[in-house]
């Protein structure tokens, strides 16, 4: 029923990628124990760009965007109001973080970094709550939250990794301190990616259970999943797994201190994962089956 919600697909993936960028890169920054590693300098501005783009795209979903300022008027009851507020606040915090580090490169602004990362996490949580509607049993499970966080970790990690690999090309090969930093950073990325994959895999059977329960409800919704079959679901998983595999290879190469073709490879990995996630998100909206009439 909602298979054509492309603006929401883009909005959620863009904002979740942005949150992932902030969360993963700030974690990596702290794990790497460095104030301003060159390899992590573009992630926050990148996140700001993606979040801003996401917010702009979301406006195209609205029938009367001129009223959009009113959309935070029901924070007390509406998860949608909260989502808009949470995304805006996250965007503003990330923007502030980027501005501070651009104006004063010597400052780590780690407090603000932690705040931005927490706001990113909160935003993804709030986003997932938007879909937990009692009339939509397929969405109304913890799998929605797990899936959104999975997306955040996966795309955020890969985006961080791509920027990291681009920046790593200028890194000095012989510097032992840089190598050690690299190892730690890659380790964080690795853990984040595994976490993302794990969330996805946990969510999957929950999704299937909810779907099969919702199937044959005799309701008005027509499931995209039901009509397109499991083929799309499998394709989507394969895309994500292929991306993750390439990313793992890239990570190993970085650890081995070799940088040739890493940018291209990590870009390919990001594209595969993004394609998988886009497909997955279309399926998510397509699985909208509402009870009742």
């Amino acid at each position: 029923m909602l298979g054509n919600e492309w603006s929401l697909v883009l909005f959620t993936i863009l904002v979740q990628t942005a949150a992932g960028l902030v969360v993963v890169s700030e974690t990596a920054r702290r794990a790497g124990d460095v104030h301003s590693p060159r390899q992590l300098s573009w992630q926050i501005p990148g996140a700001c760009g993606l979040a801003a783009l996401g917010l702009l795209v979301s406006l195209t979903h609205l029938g009367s965007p001129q009223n959009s300022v009113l959309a935070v008027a029901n924070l007390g009851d509406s998860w949608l109001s909260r989502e808009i507020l949470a995304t805006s606040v996250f965007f503003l915090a990330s923007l502030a973080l980027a501005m501070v580090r651009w104006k004063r490169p010597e400052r780590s602004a780690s407090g603000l970094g932690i705040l931005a990362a927490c706001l990113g996490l909160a935003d993804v949580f709030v986003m997932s709550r938007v879909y937990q509607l009692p009339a939509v049993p397929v969405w109304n499970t913890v799998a929605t939250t797990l899936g959104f966080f999975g997306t955040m970790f996966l795309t955020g990690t890969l985006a961080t990794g791509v920027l990291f690999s681009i920046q790593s090309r200028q890194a000095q090969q012989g510097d032992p301190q840089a190598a050690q930093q690299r190892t730690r950073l890659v380790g964080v990325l690795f853990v984040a990616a595994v976490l993302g994959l794990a969330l996805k895999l946990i969510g999957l059977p929950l999704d299937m259970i909810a779907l099969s329960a919702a199937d044959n409800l005799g309701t008005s919704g027509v499931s995209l999943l039901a009509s397109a079959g499991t083929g799309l679901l499998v394709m989507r998983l394969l895309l994500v797994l292929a991306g993750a595999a390439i990313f793992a290879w890239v990570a190993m190469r970085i650890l081995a201190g070799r940088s040739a073709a890493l940018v291209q490879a990590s870009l390919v990995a990001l594209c595969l994962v993004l394609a998988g996630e886009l497909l997955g998100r279309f399926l998510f909206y397509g699985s909208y089956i509402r009870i009742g009439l």
Partner: protein
Amino acid sequence: MQKRLAFHLDMNACTGCKTCMIACIDKNDLADGVLYRRVSEYTGGDWIRNADGTYEQNVFSYYLSISCNHCENPICVRSCPTTAMYKDENGIVSVNPEKCVGCRYCEWGCPYSAPQFNAELGIMTKCDFCRDYLDLGKPPACVAACPTRALTFGPYQELLDKYGQAQLVAPLPDTAITQPNLLFTPSRKAQPAGSRNGKISNPEEV
């Protein structure tokens, strides 16, 4: 005006004629794709062919004419980000077009398809119980139209006393979700809530 108004549908009398829908379309001049009231056809049963070529069947079918139920716990009002969707002092749920942002979130969550997106206006629209008619002391257009008097309306408690408590037949959702102001006189064909014996068989019409 009476507070907490409700609709009542007598399933023994509803023939699925859709006069309520046309009266509503005419009164509100509804655009293509917008229906404040919809008549769903719920049909089930199977056919068995006997060895001698004759047939056995247990087919059943009934119609449910449903608009907004002006719920006591309206999920549309709760989920509306702008507060454009509101329940007035008499309990009527309607949209303030000045505020609506057209995000269609209310549409996602309402298990009765009450909020309807008007693509030309870019906002949600819906049944307002013909508030203007009520102000004039007239019944809502759909109720006044019903040829078999299957559809009636009145204060919730009055209807409850008159027709009993039946609120739930398949495939309507659990009333706990929104506490709809909707009552039924079920027919013997009515399937219990949660039943999977039938399905909505006219999705193209609602």
